[in-house]
């Protein structure tokens, strides 16, 4: 029985990792209706900035996280202006943005490999472990869970209670209608993009002590994040987080009864099933 509880704790922790990346991906899709392939690399840069800040500059870990967020924001701003905004106006803008951000992701990854090097590195996050009965969870993993939930709550509050949130939801529903009522769509788009990038940057800083920093960490995580976003419903914030946690839980519970390979196969089958039966996702709304 102990092992089941431990796997639940593991699954939630792993799942929050997926959710932190899926959150921004889903947000961008919901508002701009584009897929940002460079999102995983923003996550990786967050990890790298945290590594540089803590190991080279001696910044305390908790202070390095906001720095990673700022780095994410700057990168998001640059990607939006270089590879998203100029292409959005085109007729097949969505597909162009997908390709352009894919190119940007390779560019970022190669630049890091050339300038910083391919070697992985350890980042020491919060020290200590918490034990409840025989279930062990490190403080860092609990911290990731807490910050993830905080992001979700803050984002939901922002969407429902602020003027920017109202504008954002209006743009998400119809760019044309939003423009008609005087909303500056480009500005809303930019802000959305930057918020998503901040979450990715901080997410990279949060998760790199758990999974180790590696220049490949973005490429690895974005695939799972896509799965989470599709199952959860493209554009659904709550769906992304809940579904991230669910996929993490499902993986860890399945690993109790089957091998990792089979568990992964089941997750991807679920993805296919959702696409066939509920293409708007488990939490998504039908009409858009």
């Amino acid at each position, binding site marked *: 029985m102990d*092992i089941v509880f*431990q*796997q639940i704790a*593991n*699954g939630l*922790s*792993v799942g929050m*990792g997926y959710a932190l990346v899926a959150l921004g991906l889903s947000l961008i899709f919901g508002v701009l209706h584009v897929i940002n392939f460079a999102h995983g690399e923003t996550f990786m840069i967050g990890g790298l900035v945290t590594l540089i800040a803590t190991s080279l500059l001696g910044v305390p870990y908790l202070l390095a996280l906001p720095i990673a967020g700022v780095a994410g924001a700057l990168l998001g701003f640059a990607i939006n202006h270089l590879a998203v905004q100029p292409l959005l106006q085109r007729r097949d803008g969505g597909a162009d943005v997908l390709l352009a951000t894919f190119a940007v992701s390779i560019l970022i990854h190669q630049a890091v490999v050339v300038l910083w*090097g*391919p*070697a*992985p*590195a*350890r980042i*020491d996050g919060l020290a200590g*472990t918490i034990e409840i009965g025989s279930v*062990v969870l*490190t403080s860092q993993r609990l911290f990731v869970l807490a910050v993830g939930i905080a992001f979700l709550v803050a984002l939901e509050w922002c969407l429902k209670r602020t003027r920017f949130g109202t504008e954002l939801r209006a743009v998400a529903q119809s760019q044309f209608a939003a423009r008609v009522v005087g909303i500056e769509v480009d500005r809303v788009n930019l802000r959305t993009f930057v918020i998503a990038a901040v979450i990715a940057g901080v997410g990279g800083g949060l998760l790199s002590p*758990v*999974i*180790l920093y*590696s220049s*490949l*960490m973005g*490429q*690895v*995580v974005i695939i799972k994040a896509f799965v989470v976003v599709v199952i959860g419903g493209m554009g659904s914030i709550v769906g992304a987080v809940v579904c991230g946690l669910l996929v993490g839980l499902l*993986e*860890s519970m399945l*690993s*109790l009864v089957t*091998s*990792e*390979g089979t568990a*992964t196969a089941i997750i991807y089958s679920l993805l296919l099933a959702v696409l066939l039966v509920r293409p708007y996702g488990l939490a998504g709304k039908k009409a858009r």
Partner: protein
Amino acid sequence: MDIRWGAAARRSIVATAIAALLGGLAFPAAAQQPPVRIGVLMPTKSLVGKQGQQGAVVAAEMINADGGILNGRRIELVVYDTNFQPAEGVGAAQRLLNQDKIKFIAGEISSTVALAVVQLAQANGALFMAAVPKHPDVTASGYDRVFRLNSTTAMDARDFDAVLTEKVKPTKVAVLAENSDFGRLTIANLRKLFGSKVVAAEAYDMTQNDFSTLVTKVKGSGADLVCIAGSNMEQYGNILRLMQELKLDAKRCVMPGILNSEGVRVAGAAADNAFSADIYVPSLDNPLNKRFVAAYQAKYKETPEKIEELGFESIWLLAQAMQKAGTADDPAKVAKVLHDNKWDTPRGVVAFDKNGQAESGALINLVVKDGKLVPAP
């Protein structure tokens, strides 16, 4: 790819040309003699490839500092990138053979590249001294001018199995292996060795980065020995860290030939007391090794490990054999001398079997103590 390869190749030709020119200026007496040119194939853009190449460069510099071979002829390396791709490896080897007219080729990391180069060497009568490739077929061609310096997985297992069964004596064994030829082979080997004592054997994807569920499963299996068979240091480093986090109190071994000081650094304190084995450690106490380590540290500000040593050895042995054979133009003669003699290297005395496989005696048992990889007591 071809264009990039071409540019890299041109750069290295220019570099060697400049090196030859400078060398000629610095040693006018030696310049009268043509240099002995040795081809080096390495995936030079990767970390391991660079390590191997740097080892080779140190060998050439040490030989040249000693006055060269065959009455003062200097060693000159012609280095080409293979990028882990058989096609690029073949292109590079063809260039060495046809364009540079070089009959002695050393180096390489990748087995698939080496297997392709073996065929080319055979067709051209050249000698190939493979440094790092581990696949058994590299020395299975029957061609008597192919040599391989690294140990094979089977050779590693031969020595390490005895350590596991006679020294460690586990009652329950768990295996965590990457989902590759090497990982699956290791699982099969350990199952054969321990039979029903293997209580968990899990293969993980080579892109996986969170191992908490796997390690929890291993913990639940009650194993008192956990063997890790995966060459990615971020992966085995992470597994070691999770074992510590989840308070898994078992002996931990990393299968031979994988653990290096970079990996130990990545794992941090969690690597302490993990054990492994390898053919080389930089702390070996023999004059040639001390000289090699000092020369490498002086040039690159790092301590050389196995890959660097194998790169060094590939050039060092070729040069010694050329000297002994009295020729730098006859691969058959040099190959025969290599086969017939025992050779001093930084890792100890090396001899070649009839297939060209190097043997340097038993593996060195290693253990991590206070963040350092040291020979086991």
